[in-house]
């Protein structure tokens, strides 16, 4: 179990329901283990003078037809009831796992046979199956445990099959197969660990069900036989004397109810605590709607910003994002300051891990819960986004900010029609009616140049190609009237021809509606096609903020120049290696004291290693963070770093 899993279990225990359920289950289990010892004598003590007595101070739930104390008998029966329920669950889980994993292990043809058999078994009601098995295995506790266990197996098997199929389709499983890892080993090492959590949850809920089923079978006389007794058996005896002593029936019924409910609740709260991400494995940040993260409403901070010029859409000052880590917090974004004006297209480039995505996520308030976002200013259209989670803020984010992610496949819900998903956002944020929202969805699909939008709106995401999905995603952002589109690697997963279409579309939207664009990409070429201005990020900082047309010839920062040179072009010489940036990007857990780029920089001096250069305006007009900022020398190789005069 890695840290993240442990963290999620803890989170479950922190909810009131999770805590209550866990405590109840614990009590029941303790009773089952230690219960019989102290009460055994009292539960079986025959008191002929006190037959079928009602509740009294001495016998809380009265006595049975031999004068035995019912309350103690119920407590004593905990062990057998819970034990049998767990045994039945174990049988069900084992059988279910065998059936569920069989298709994976047996290969396609035999596997299909097993899958078919499981489907048929599922079609029978569970109780019917249990009764059938109970008759087959004979009356008695063992028979009943087998019956209930096997009756639950098909459902569990199907769950296993479904979850397995989901994980097995991922590339890491294919990679293991290509590496020659056997099917059984893949199952044990890759598949089961990735589906364990939902299975455990399901088995817990199943144990609650088994408990009830057992009580039912014993009650019908098919389960535990006298002189043994479980709760169902006690209930059966109690019902017989219902008119003499109702408590004799109520006490075991209550026990069944409490224990069954406790197990169910525990399962449910674990499921909820783990969320869908445990089941589907989607990154949480793939949620397309920033407003989805609802929380307690707080007073709105609707005052427009004091001194921000009117046409500033996004104003960010000294933005920091940090995460807790074993060796103290890491800060992947370390003081980022920039603003975007109406209709302006700003690109963000930088290597992997430089904090581009986190900056975008912080702006749209999608950094995951563990992360901490701090800023001196974080204004969208003059509204402070830093604190609180008011309805006004959510509405603003929902309608004025559109987010486009890299992976168009995971941004849509695969089970809903595209049109409906687009309409949803409108109904949510603008209170449009169903019809009107759908009409707008169709209109927006047309706006993003999807042909035959009427028909397309009624299709599911998988019927769209990657490029169409990405356009639909942009269309979703356009359901409101966004002032800013944040696009994080929107074309990275697309082919060049489609990439060209999406980039053209973004440009068209921007120019026709004066929508500002924050385009994140690792590809300088992509950014330079679309943007007016480029922010170059390195190790969580902006190191240069320059107009696009200066990228190739007017860059002042050595990193910007290296990054531009590293893009292969149609005219790169083939006889020598591509220029690369030596060394590795900085690990956010280990940021050096001076300039973060010093270790890789050909111009680094002692000052660079000691002092971190601030992002300041250079005489040539744009902002740069470098002690030796200067235009590109004519012959890069000929320059000796030592001869450089330090710029201020």
């Amino acid at each position, binding site marked *: 179990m890695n840290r993240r899993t442990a963290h999620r279990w803890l989170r479950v225990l922190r909810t009131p329901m999770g805590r209550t359920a866990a405590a109840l289950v614990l009590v029941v289990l303790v009773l089952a283990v230690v219960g019989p010892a102290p009460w055994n004598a009292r539960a079986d003590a025959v008191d002929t003078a006190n037959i079928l007595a009602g509740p009294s101070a001495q016998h809380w739930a009265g006595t049975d037809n031999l004068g035995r104390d019912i309350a103690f008998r119920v407590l004593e029966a905990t062990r057998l009831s819970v034990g049998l329920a767990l045994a039945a669950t174990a049988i069900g889980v084992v059988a279910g796992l065998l059936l569920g994993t069989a298709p994976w292990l047996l290969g396609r043809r035999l596997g299909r046979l097993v899958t078919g058999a499981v489907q048929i078994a599922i079609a029978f009601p569970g109780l019917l199956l249990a009764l059938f098995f109970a008759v087959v295995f004979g009356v008695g506790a063992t028979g009943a445990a087998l019956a209930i266990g096997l009756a639950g197996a098909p459902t569990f098997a199907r769950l296993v099959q479904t979850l397995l199929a989901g994980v097995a389709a*991922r590339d890491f499983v294919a990679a293991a197969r290509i590496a020659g890892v056997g099917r059984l080993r893949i199952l044990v090492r890759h598949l089961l660990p990735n589906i364990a959590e939902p299975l455990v949850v399901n088995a817990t809920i199943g144990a609650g069900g088994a408990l009830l089923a057992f009580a039912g079978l014993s009650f019908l006389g098919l389960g535990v036989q006298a002189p043994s007794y479980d709760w169902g058996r006690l209930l059966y005896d109690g019902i017989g004397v219902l008119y003499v002593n109702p408590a004799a029936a109520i006490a075991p019924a209550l026990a069944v109810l409490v224990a069954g409910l406790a197990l169910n609740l525990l399962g449910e709260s674990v499921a909820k605590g783990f969320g869908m991400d445990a089941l589907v494995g989607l990154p949480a940040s793939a949620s397309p709607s920033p407003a989805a993260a609802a929380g307690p409403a707080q007073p709105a901070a609707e005052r427009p910003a004091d001194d921000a010029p009117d046409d500033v859409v996004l104003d960010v000052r000294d933005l920091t994002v940090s995460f807790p880590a074993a060796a103290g917090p890491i800060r992947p974004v370390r003081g980022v300051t920039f603003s975007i004006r109406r209709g302006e297209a700003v690109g963000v480039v930088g290597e992997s891990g430089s904090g581009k995505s986190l900056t975008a996520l912080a702006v749209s308030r999608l950094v995951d819960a563990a992360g901490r976002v701090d800023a001196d200013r974080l204004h969208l259209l003059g509204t402070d986004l830093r604190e609180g989670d008011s309805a006004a803020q959510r509405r603003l984010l929902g309608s004025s900010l559109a987010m486009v992610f890299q992976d168009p496949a995971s941004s849509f819900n695969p089970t809903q029609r595209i049109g409906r998903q687009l309409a949803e956002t409108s109904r949510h944020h603008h209170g449009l009616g169903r019809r009107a929202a759908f009409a707008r969805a169709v209109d927006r699909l047309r706006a993003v140049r999807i042909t035959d939008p009427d028909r397309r709106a009624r299709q599911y995401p998988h019927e769209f190609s990657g490029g169409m999905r990405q356009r639909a995603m942009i269309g979703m952002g356009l359901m409101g009237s966004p002032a800013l589109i944040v696009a994080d690697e929107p074309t990275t997963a697309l082919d060049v021809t489609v990439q060209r279409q999406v980039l053209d579309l973004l440009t068209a939207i921007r120019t026709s509606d004066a929508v500002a664009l924050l385009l994140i990409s690792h590809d300088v070429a992509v950014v330079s096609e679309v943007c007016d201005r480029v922010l170059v990020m390195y190790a969580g900082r902006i190191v240069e903020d320059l107009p696009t047309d200066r990228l190739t010839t007017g860059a002042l920062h050595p990193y910007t120049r290296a990054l531009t040179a590293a893009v292969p072009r149609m005219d790169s010489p083939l006889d020598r290696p*591509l220029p690369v940036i030596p060394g590795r990007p900085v690990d956010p857990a280990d940021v050096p004291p001076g300039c973060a780029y010093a270790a890789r920089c050909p111009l680094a001096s002692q000052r660079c290693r000691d002092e971190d250069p601030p992002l300041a305006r250079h005489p040539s007009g744009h902002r740069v963070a470098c002690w030796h900022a200067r235009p590109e020398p004519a012959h890069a190789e000929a320059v000796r770093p030592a001869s450089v005069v330090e710029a201020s």
Partner: protein
Amino acid sequence: MSELLFEDVTVRYGRLTAVDGVTLRVPAGGVLGLVGESGSGKSTLARAAVGLVPPAGGRILLDGEPVRAHGRHRPLQMVFQDPYSSLDPRMTIGETITEAIPPGMSRAQRRTEVARLLELVHLDPGRASAYPGQLSGGQRQRVALARAIAGRPRVVIADEITSALDVSIQGAILNLVRELQRELGLSILFISHNLAVVRYVADHVAIMLRGRVVEQGPAARVLSEPGHEYTRALLDAVPGHRLTARSAT
């Protein structure tokens, strides 16, 4: 040096024909660049070669023999496009790479090998104990690359391996691909939609459109005198193409 030959290969998913009678040759010790849009069947062809999907027709031959897609040592290794799904989130990257190392090494040797491979793809060997979730997208792809090389393959199939990488790494990976190819005499089927990238690594290029190969030949010829209209459209869409055009005017 090994030659990988696709002979009239057809692959179907149900009624859909994803690859339609493709004949391609990855020359021994050479690089064949395969270009085409998504859905054109490039990845399907790759998956057929490594035995992940069965071909409905045709043959796939490695040095004249049918490719062995069973057993512990596989002569073909593949690097996938999506670094988010190609690594098991529950395994450390060290474990993932170790899994692909051919059997017969001691524990200590395996550890050294993992460190060497990580170094090779410019990752800190100290991060062998990290989980994929702790790495950024680019870092994950480098791990996936290390895993493929770990298998000591005769042919490597690289499916869009740089499309999710940032440029600085992309350059290093492309250089690395060329270097490995020369030193180990690897044959590589290099799938990419980026013509500038393909041009840099491949000596032969094949263009795929809707399951068929529409044009193939020496890279220099295909990219400078495209014979098919679709090849011309691809050339036109290369990012930066317009930029060059713009700064020229």
